[in-house]
C-alpha cells in the first residue's frame, strides 16, 4: 500500500512549481488580471512544452499517458500560483477524447490537443445553474446542436469545444462552426475567463462513448485541487504577512489571537489534501468510489478554500481589502472553483443520493 506520490510525481510538482515561479510570478498574474484576463498564448505554450497539455492523452497520440492525479498535481500548482491558463477546460476535453472518442476521432484531435496547439474546453453547466445531465436541454438533431452552455471556461481561446448532453453523451464542436456564438460572462476571477456558448444548429460530432460523468468528475477533482492550491498558499501568505507586519511595536504574528486564527486557517484547508489525492486516484482505479469521492472533494475543499480566502483578507488588514494586494486574486479564484460545475450545496445533494442516505 502506498498513499502518496511517486518520485516522478514529486518531480512533476517540482517542475511545474519552478516553471510557475519563473514564468508566471505574481507580477505576470497581476498584469493579466488587471488587463481583464486575456489568454496568454506564450504562457500556455510554455506549460504545453512541460507536457501539461497532453498529460492524460495516451502516449501513442503524443501525450504522456498519465493519470488524473498527475493532472490534479498540476492543478494544485496552477492554483497556488493563480496561473492564468485555459487548463481546466483543456484537461476536461482531453479526458473526454481520451476516454470517449473512437479511434478515428482520437487520431483527428488528440495529437493537436496533446501538444497544446489546439486548446480544448468543455461546456457542462446550463444557464440557471443546471448541472444535472438529466436536466440538460441541449439537443442533438441531424448532426447539429441546439441549446446553450453557461460558464464555459476559456471558450474564446478554445479551438475545440466538447458539449455535454443528457445520458453522458458528448459532442465535439470546432471553432468557427456555423451557428456557434459565445458571450462573455461577468466573472470576478480574471485569471480564467468564462463564457456562455450559444448553439443554434451547430454541426457537431458525437463521441463514441457516453463518458460525460467521468468528464465531470475529472473537472470536479481539478477544481478541488486548484482550490486547495489557492487556500494553502493563502495561509502561507497570511503567515508571512503576520511575521512582517508590525503593530504596537511587534510583529502581529506574536499576538496569540492572530497566531490562533492562522492555525485555524491551516486546519481548515491542510487536512483536505489527502481527500483530493484520494479522489484523483479513485478516478482511475476505484470505479465504485469515483463519483462520490469527486463530489466530496469538490464540495468540501472549495468551501474550505473560500473560507480561508475570507480569513486571509481579514488577516491582511486594510491591505487585504485592496485591489493591489494579491489576496484578492486568490479570493476570486477560489470563488470560481467553488461555483463552476456546481456549488458545494448542489454536490452535497448528490453526495446524499450517492451515499444512499
Amino acid at each position, binding site marked *: 500500500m502506498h498513499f502518496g506520490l511517486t518520485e516522478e510525481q514529486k518531480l512533476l510538482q517540482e517542475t511545474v512549481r519552478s516553471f510557475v515561479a519563473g514564468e508566471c510570478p505574481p507580477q505576470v498574474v497581476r498584469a493579466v488580471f488587471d488587463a481583464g484576463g486575456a489568454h496568454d498564448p506564450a504562457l500556455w505554450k510554455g506549460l504545453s512544452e512541460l507536457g501539461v497539455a497532453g498529460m492524460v492523452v495516451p502516449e501513442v497520440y503524443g501525450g504522456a499517458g498519465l493519470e488524473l492525479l498527475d493532472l490534479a498535481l498540476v492543478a494544485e500548482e496552477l492554483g497556488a500560483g493563480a496561473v492564468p491558463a485555459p487548463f481546466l477546460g483543456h484537461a476536461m476535453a482531453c479526458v473526454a477524447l481520451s476516454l470517449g472518442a473512437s479511434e478515428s476521432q482520437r487520431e483527428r484531435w488528440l495529437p493537436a490537443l496533446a501538444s497544446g496547439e489546439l486548446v480544448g474546453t468543455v461546456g457542462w453547466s446550463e444557464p440557471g445553474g443546471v448541472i444535472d445531465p438529466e436536466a440538460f436541454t441541449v439537443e442533438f438533431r441531424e448532426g447539429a446542436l441546439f441549446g446553450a452552455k453557461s460558464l464555459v471556461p476559456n471558450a474564446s481561446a478554445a479551438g475545440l469545444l466538447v458539449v455535454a448532453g443528457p445520458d453522458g453523451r458528448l459532442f465535439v464542436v470546432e471553432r468557427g462552426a456555423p451557428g456557434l456564438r459565445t458571450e462573455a460572462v461577468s466573472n470576478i476571477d480574471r485569471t480564467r475567463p468564462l463564457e456562455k456558448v450559444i448553439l443554434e444548429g451547430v454541426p457537431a460530432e458525437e463521441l463514441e462513448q457516453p463518458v460525460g460523468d467521468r468528464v465531470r468528475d475529472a473537472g470536479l477533482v481539478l477544481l478541488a485541487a486548484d482550490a486547495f492550491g489557492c487556500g494553502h498558499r493563502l495561509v502561507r501568505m497570511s503567515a508571512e504577512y503576520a511575521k512582517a507586519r508590525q503593530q504596537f511595536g511587534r510583529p502581529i504574528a506574536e499576538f496569540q489571537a*492572530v497566531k490562533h486564527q492562522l492555525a485555524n486557517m491551516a486546519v481548515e484547508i491542510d487536512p483536505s489534501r489527502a481527500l483530493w489525492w484520494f479522489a484523483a486516484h479513485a478516478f482511475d482505479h476505484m470505479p465504485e468510489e469515483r463519483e462520490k469521492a469527486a463530489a466530496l472533494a469538490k464540495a468540501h475543499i472549495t468551501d474550505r478554500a473560500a473560507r480561508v480566502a475570507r480569513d486571509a483578507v481579514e488577516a491582511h488588514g486594510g491591505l487585504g481589502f485592496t485591489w493591489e494586494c494579491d489576496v484578492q486574486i486568490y479570493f476570486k479564484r477560489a470563488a470560481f472553483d467553488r461555483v463552476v460545475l456546481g456549488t458545494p450545496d*448542489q454536490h452535497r445533494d448528490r453526495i446524499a443520493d450517492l451515499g444512499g442516505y
Partner: protein
Amino acid sequence: MDLRLGAHYDELRERVREFARANWPLRGAEAELPRREQEILFRRRAIEAGLLARTVPRAYGGAEVPTDPIAEAVIRQELDAAGAPHRASPQGTHMLVPTLLEEGSEAQKRHYIPPTLVGEIYWCQGYSEPGAGSDLASLQSRAVAHGDHFVITGQKIWTSNAFEADMMFGLFRTEADEPRSGGLSYLLVDMKSPGIDVRPLRQMNGGEEFCEVFFDEVRVPIENLVGRRGEGWKVSKATLKHERMLIGDASYARIHFQNLLDLARRVRHGGRPAIEDPGIRRRLAELEGWIACQVHASQRILSAVARNEDLEVLPDMLMAKLNSTNVFQRMTRMALDLLGEEALTEPSPDETGMAVGTPTPGRWVSQAMVAIGTAIAGGTSNIQRNIIGERVLGLPRDPRPPGSAGGART
C-alpha cells in the same frame, strides 16, 4: 417598555413629512442651480426648521434644540424616505463638528462649523497610515513647526472620499522627540494646498471609496491646530468614539434581510424556488434571529441614550460593532450560496458603494467583500475583542512587551 412613539413624535413625523414635501426637490429657479448648491440650500432650511444640526449652538450655525435621539431617528427616517439630501459630509458633521465643539478655539468653531453643517465644506479624515492601522500611536507623518506654519511631509491611507473633500482633519507628528502617542497634533489641512497628492485606492470589489494622500512639504497655518500641540491624541478621541457608533448602526440589517428573502424567491435550487427548500428556510430563519437581536439591541441603545441612561447600555454599545460585522458576514455568505453561478458576477462601478441599492448579483458580490472590509475598518475585529474582553468582562490588558508605552489602544 413602551414602544409607541407617542403623540409628540407622531406630530414631529408629520411635520418632517410636510417639510420634506415643501422643500425637496427645489422648485423654480432654484431647481436650476448646481446639485451641490441645491443640497446646501435644503440643509440650511432644514436647520432653520430645527430638523438638522439640532444640538449645535445657533452661534455656530446649528438649531440649538435639546438633544433627543429619538426625534433625530424619526427625522432621519422621514428625510430618507423622501429622498432628501439631509446628510452632508458625515466625516464633517459626525466627527469634526463634535471635536471642534469640545476642543476647538472660538475662531475655529465660528469659521468651520457653519459651512460644514450645510455641506459647503466636505471633510476627510487623516488618521491611518501604511505602517499604522489599528496602532495610531505609531503614526509617522511629520508636521514641522516653521514660523507661523507647520510643514507636513508624509502619507495617509484609507482616507474616504478624499477626492471630493475640501479639508482634512488628522493627526500629525509635531514633536519628533516624544515617542508613540505623545507627540501628535490635530491639524486641519486645506486639501487644495500645494504639495498634496490624492490617489485613489482601489478596493478588492473594484470600488474606489478610499484614497491615499501624499504630503510633500505642505504648509498649514498654525491657527489650524486644534487643542494643544502634542495633545492631538486626546483631541481625536471624541472623534473615534463617534466613528464606532456610526459603523455599529443597525439600520440596514432589515433591508438586507428583505433583499435576501427576495433573492431566495427568485433563484431556483433543484428546479424549484430556493425559498421552498427546508434547509434554506431554516438558514433564513436563523439569520432573522441574529438580525432581530441587532435591531432590538440598537432600539434599546437608542432608547437608553435618549433617557440619559447611557451607562446601562455601555456593554451593548461596545459589542455592537463586532456583532453587526458578524451578522453582515452571515448575510452575505448566505447571499453567495443563494446566487449560485451568479456569485461570480464582477461588481460594476455603481454596485460597489456601501449604500444599499438594488440588490443585483454584482452588488451582493460586492457586499460580501465589503462585509469582510467592515471587520477591518475602524479598528479590526480583534481590537474590538480586546475592548470587549477588557471593558465588558473586566479582563486584564495584554501584558506589554518591554519598551512599549501605554495608551496604544483607544
